[in-house]
């Protein structure tokens, strides 16, 4: 490794050297996968939020004169067993799933960053207590807990569901942040700040968190996809979003049994789900490469 580093070109010292932000953006755009992913995600968001205005049909209103119709000019994605428009339902479900995914990713990443950085920086009992909590929460697959609690939350709606998902989704990230903090804490710039008399929380805010931010950004991105998958899985088994609300998960649950005969009831929702998560993962991968200064895609 040292020999390779030895030959690395000297750092740019000209005044025109690009800032870090621009550098990341350039590298991100250079990665075709990430660009494609970003475009797909944007289009899906557009579809989810503009879609309901494109169709005259309401997602909830049944129409007993048009039952299980295949896709047509009138009903783009066909209709279901009680004549509801599948397109209207799908975009509505997509919207809910996306919002849930985003919120869960945001909340759980915040929690993970905070807990991980504190555990790592303060060490001692704070660290041990927090890590015991992490281990405790990791013992049960989160699905078990969410499924047990979910009947109680019937009235609280999907926001409670978001909180629940976020609450069981931060532990592994927190572990990683903690171990990164442990090594950052011994880094000389953090030591320097300590010896200058900078207060602990200020050090966490100004030195630790910015230096784990690449990881957190990547992780948050991937978590959006993961949260959407959890949401659909739980909703599929009736533990997540509940009727009359729809999400991709409830749509899949409703369409499963009829999939072999009436494929439009199942495959539109399934396709959008896979497409969205795939696009998110592509962005995450591109971000990983762009933010990691050691990775270099340009050398074959």
């Amino acid at each position, binding site marked *: 490794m040292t020999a390779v580093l030895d030959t690395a070109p*000297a750092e740019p*010292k000209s005044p025109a050297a690009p800032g870090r932000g621009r550098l990341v953006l350039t590298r991100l755009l250079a990665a075709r996968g990430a660009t494609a992913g970003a475009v797909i995600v944007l289009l899906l968001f557009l579809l989810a939020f503009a879609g309901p205005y494109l169709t005259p049909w309401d997602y909830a209103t049944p129409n007993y004169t048009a039952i299980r119709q295949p896709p047509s000019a009138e009903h783009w994605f066909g209709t279901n067993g009680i004549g509801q428009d599948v397109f209207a339902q799908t975009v509505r479900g997509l919207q809910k799933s996306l919002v849930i995914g985003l919120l869960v990713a945001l909340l759980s990443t915040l929690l993970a960053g905070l807990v991980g950085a504190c555990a790592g920086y303060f060490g001692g009992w704070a660290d041990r207590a927090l890590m015991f909590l992490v281990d405790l929460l990791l013992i049960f697959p989160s699905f078990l807990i969410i499924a047990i609690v979910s009947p109680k939350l019937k009235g609280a709606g999907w926001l409670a569901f978001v909180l629940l998902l976020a609450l069981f989704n931060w532990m592994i990230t927190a572990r990683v942040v903690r171990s990164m903090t442990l090594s950052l804490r011994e880094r000389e710039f953090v030591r320097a700040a300590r010896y*200058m*008399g900078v207060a602990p929380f200020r050090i966490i805010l100004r030195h630790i968190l*910015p230096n784990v931010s690449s990881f957190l950004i990547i992780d948050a991105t991937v978590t959006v996809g993961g949260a959407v998958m959890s949401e659909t899985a739980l909703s599929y088994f009736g533990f997540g979003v509940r009727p009359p609300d729809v999400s991709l998960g409830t749509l899949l649950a409703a369409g499963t049994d009829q999939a072999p005969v009436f494929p439009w009831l199942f495959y539109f929702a399934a396709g959008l789900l896979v497409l969205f998560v795939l696009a998110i993962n592509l962005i995450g991968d591109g971000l990983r490469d762009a933010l990691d200064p050691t990775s270099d895609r340009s050398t074959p």
Partner: protein
Amino acid sequence: MSASLLEVSDLTVDFGAVPAVRGVDLAVRRGETLGIVGESGSGKSVTALAVLGLLPRAAAVGGSVRLDGRELVGLPDKELARIRGSRIAMVFQDPLSAFTPVYRIGDQIVEALRIHRPQGRAAARRRAAELLDLVGIPAPERALDSFPHEFSGGMRQRAMIAMAIANDPDILLADEPTTALDVTIQAQVLDVLRTAQRETGAALVLVSHDLGVIAGMADRVAVMYAGRVVETAPVDELFARPRHPYTLGLIGAVPRLDGRGGPLVPIPGTPPAPGTVTGCPFAARCPLVEDRCRTAEPALTGDDGHLAACVRAGELAARAPRPEEVYPVPPVPPAGRPGEEILRVTGLVKTFPVLKGTVFKRRVGTVHAVDGVDLAIRRGETLGLVGESGSGKSTTLYELLALTRPEAGRIDLLGRDTAGLDRAGTRELRRAVQIVFQDPMASLDPRMPVGDIIAEPLRAQAAPRAQIDRRIPQLLRQVGLEPAHASRYPHQFSGGQRQRISIARALAVEPELLVLDEPVSALDVSIQAGVLNLLQRLKAELGLAYLFVSHDLSVIRHLADRVSVMYLGHTVEAGTVESVFESPRHPYTRALLSAVPLPDPVAERARTRILLAGDPPSPRERPSGCPFRARCQVHALLDDARRARCEQEVPLPQAAAPGVDHLAACHYPDA
């Protein structure tokens, strides 16, 4: 002149569009030692790796490498593998990462033996034990079953050499084999390399950045710069009459153990980014540059085996100037007389528990990192703190900077006992003492612009905004940077510039004492000289006191007024630089001084060397009596009655004579 064993001609290595090696010619004869010297990025390691075909696939290798007339460049992997390890073997820089962590040392040596000569496991194992014995590893049978992480750095490098000579190679390539090691261990390993060379009759190619190591080991030397050999000559000739201005500058930039005072010769600027220069790559930094240097790159020419790639080589050969006659040397204002005492440490102790377990930790031992340290610094004075790794010098620093009550002993800073500080006192002392770390990359937050980095201590002291804005450009200029640099990020600067930023940050709050923790050891020699000169100037201008920690005795000799030597958590010798370096009293100091290689082949050959036995003991064990006695060359020669005193009684620091500033903690000093 015998035919060359290894002949490298016009070797080129490109990483994509970036040329790392640009036409290198080298010849190695049977049994000789060729030194390749150069700074980071000069292409010296890449050249060594290219010979063995060990570069990553992304590297394009051109030119020719012939072993006994057989071309190696372009040989298929299978053929090359048969040559690697059997005819040409390699010793790498970092012996920890160079061994596969999951296999036992013995198994890795046995593997090397069995690849080339099919033989039974038992026979190979016996041979491996012999090899370990040869390189001086105690209890070789047991060592075979150790994992790499259980060995110390020096032991690992010995084992690495044992593995390299396992198949009696014709050529031993050693890439910075001692760079990661302490100086006394370095002396041992260099000795092992000599033994290995004697036993196998192999030619040695020694790649190093250290002129001292090269001077002591090499028969011939090649100096590399920006991917080319710029000068090559027999070792005496090269050091006595360098013909390339770069070589001359390098020699002038090294602080020396045997001479002192005066500024070092800094080579201005930094090496060019590869592939960006037409003409002589050294032109931009060269004091002798002419117009023709910028248009065409001079060829490597000369006579009597002394070649140089410089258009004015003949002139330099004829005139043989001293470095400071060619390079402009900045004036360093004379330092004022030291003032009152600002730091006194007495009997400082710091221990760490050795813990086991994951959640419920239990203590299984104690590391006595600092076990009785005394220090004193006066205003305007530089105290050099010297010691090898594990001596406790860094722990001493961190204890000082913690500004709390020490475990035992007492720290007085600016006349205040740190044990009884209130908030305001702590805050005032946080201002008065600032630190500069070793690694300028690690000590600057990569996510912060330089202006914010420098402002951080000011903000921590709650300085008003206007003052901060005024101070930043002022500080940048003071350390030789531009005020406009404030908006850039650390990664946009070179190592030397980053260390200057570190210094600017430390100076921001006008401290009285600057703690410098190995501030130049991560820098190349030519850059290091500039930073050392800067430190000397700042000290004179600002009347600062320095606590300068270093493992490099030459640097201490050059910069410090007084010096304190540590071993295993104890202060073993202290005094003025002249007295300690001219007439060391403690056996350890003497061994340490004799282990430092001099960048002067004639003096280096004439020296008698004291080789210490073994590694320093682990600080977890706390030997009775004198901590140094297990390795002490004096103790070994004492009679039993006098030995008993070393074994039972901890020696206390004693002055050489009443009132003389030269202490040594030894029962038989000057013996």
